[in-house]
């Protein structure tokens, strides 16, 4: 039984990955859709990072895009000034974000939940101030225009050109899948189970021998690094870095993506990203009332789907399955 479940999951995973990579072919005639999906992936990556923190460990970080900004600016500056090529640049960005995560985590993780929320908010704002004020380094409030795309990659059987929409999508999709696999591996490992224990009852977990602080710091650093990776991909996509992309509104946005999508689930952040990127685009037709409707939708969701959209889908699926089994048992066929 266990073997079959394992191979089934692998098959679904492979199918999912294949579908992801086939998107540019499917939407070859709709560059706007391709663009929106690429942007969705850019937002999904930091969301998955935050999900590890918020959904699986129970730590609500309201300043997470600050780490994405660290990754973004490091990557952007290295690429723009020609100091490094794509892979070293984005690696540097990821590591820098992880480092800042460690530095942030040490003072913040000792704090109780509500205090932690506000202090991470403060850290996020401090990082934003750095992006905004350090004119000589980051371009300051006017942003950093002219960030180049990575050079084409020769895979042997094909050439992937990130300067073209399809090529960049494939790059983003690869980064996304990488993070998804990391998320999956972490969640299903002993480390991940310890995180779940910490989320449910810290004191109990500690009494069972879990080094709570070490676990929290590790996952904080990892989630910050993932956010940094996402920031790097996003800034290369937009070809410009702007402080507001990593400010308070975006901090809030990524938290919403994770919670609304369904925190604590693997697909929740992806669903949330799809909703928060694709839905406002689709709602552009209702322009003036767009944000009021969106706000109302959020309130409705908070009230009626307390486990997020993924939780809602799970509930609906369970009900459908239950109804069917009831019918079957009643003898109708």
């Amino acid at each position, binding site marked *: 039984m266990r073997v079959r479940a394992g191979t089934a999951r692998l098959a*679904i995973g492979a199918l999912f990955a294949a579908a992801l990579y086939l998107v540019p072919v499917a939407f070859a005639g*709709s*560059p*706007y*859709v391709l*663009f*929106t999906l690429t*942007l969705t992936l*850019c937002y999904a990556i930091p969301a998955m990072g935050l999900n590890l923190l918020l959904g699986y460990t129970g730590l609500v970080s309201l300043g997470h895009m600050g780490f994405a900004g660290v990754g973004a600016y490091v990557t952007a500056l290295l690429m723009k000034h020609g100091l490094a090529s794509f892979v070293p640049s984005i690696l540097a960005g990821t590591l820098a974000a992880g480092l800042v995560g460690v530095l942030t985590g040490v003072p913040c993780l000792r704090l109780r939940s509500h205090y932690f929320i506000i202090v991470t908010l403060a850290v996020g704002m401090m990082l934003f101030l750095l992006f*905004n*004020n350090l*004119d000589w380094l980051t*371009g*300051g*409030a*006017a*942003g*950093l*225009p*002219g960030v180049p795309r990575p050079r084409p990659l020769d895979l042997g059987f094909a050439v992937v050109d990130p300067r073209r*929409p399809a090529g960049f999508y494939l790059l983003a999709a690869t980064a996304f899948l990488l993070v998804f696999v990391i998320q999956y591996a972490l969640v299903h490992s002993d480390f991940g189970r310890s995180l779940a224990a910490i989320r449910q009852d810290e004191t109990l977990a500690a009494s069972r021998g879990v080094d709570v602080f070490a676990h929290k710091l590790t996952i904080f650093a990892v989630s910050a690094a993932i956010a940094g990776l996402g920031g790097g991909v*996003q800034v290369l996509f*937009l*070809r*410009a*870095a*702007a*402080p*507001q*992309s990593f400010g308070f*509104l975006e901090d809030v946005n990524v938290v919403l993506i994770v919670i609304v999508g369904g925190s604590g689930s693997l*697909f929740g952040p992806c*669903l949330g990203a*799809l909703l928060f990127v*694709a*839905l*406002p*685009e*689709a*709602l*552009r*037709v209702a*322009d*003036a009332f*767009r*944000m009021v409707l969106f706000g109302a939708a959020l309130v409705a969701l908070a009230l009626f789907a307390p486990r997020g*959209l*993924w939780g809602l*889908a*799970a509930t*609906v*699926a369970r009900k*459908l*399955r239950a109804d069917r089994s009831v019918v079957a048992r009643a003898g109708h066929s």
Partner: protein
Amino acid sequence: MTSASVAAIAIIAALGSAFTMSAAGAAEKSIDIGIVTARSGPLAAPGKFQLNGFQLAVDTINKAGGVKIGSDTYQLALKVYDTHCNAAEGASAMQRLVGVDHVPVVLGEVCSPTAAAEAPVASDYSVPLILTVPTAPDLTRQGNPFLFRVNADTDQLNKALAAYVVERHWSPLSFIAWNNDAGRGGVNGMKALLPKDIAIGYVGYFDVGAVDFSSDVTNIRKSEARAVMLLMDEEPGALAIRQIRDAGLDTQLVGTLAMGSDRFLKRLDAKYLDGMVQYSAFPPSAPLQRIQEFGQAYRAHFGEEAHGFAAQSYDGLLLAVNAMQAAGTATDGAAIQKALSGLSFDGVIGHVQFDGNNQASPPVYITQWCKGGTRKIDFPADLKSGCGAG
């Protein structure tokens, strides 16, 4: 049924219906002009003025019978998307305008960093993007042939003012500035232009939305600043000026752009403004026919005094239309871009012609408030005027 399938079906249904909604082609010949601006968020107010300018241009043209390109006559329509000063939203809006709505040209934007994200998309799809408000100088220095700017950038705006300050030796010069691209860009620009003998005094940055300047006022008084430059919009500007003057500080005030308008006067008493100097791209009471005519048309249409951003946007749209006519096409972005580079145009804001960086050099004025709430033009010298004509 798994959660995944339920979610997938719901998403596909929602997105599928949304994305197949593309702009329907109208029965009569019509051109959609793409507009990116801020319709919500903290910069919605300047965004409104910008949009008003585009709207006035379109309404004026349509009322006069439309645009004749080649042998066809077209009515104009605006396709407006809200980017609320967010880079990702800007890029998305551009993508939608060029990829779904198939506009031949895009105009607008309020914030420089957002424009920086929109410009590459313009280049990708060979659709010109004409900026009418953002002032960061770097925008037009990225070598993007499809990005144009009608309005003066920070360096151009500051040049005349810096010379003015040096002439009157207003040293030390203090600043109170928004901590965003407009404010910081202004401070950095002025610092770069001023010679050593003009000392830079206190620089007070504040968050957009902050309203209390008492700590800045105290510091300005202590630094004995000869003049204070206010790099912000009219709303905080009115507050800052009131607080400075109420504190008894009679230091010289230097304002920006729309602080030289009657709309601004309404926010304050004339006594607060007496003597204040500001750079302006659009002195509303200037005795120039182009400005007077525009002011009247704007007032007739919107019931209020014209704003410089509206004038810049109005010219931008007319420029785009002229380019379409010169190129003889309502759809070929590349041809329109070529026409734009070579165009020489006299608009409301003055003569517009793009240099090698696609940057125009419209006239920049310096106006000064007189007693009683009127203004006069102090620069350029050939337009110097008396009180009431500025």
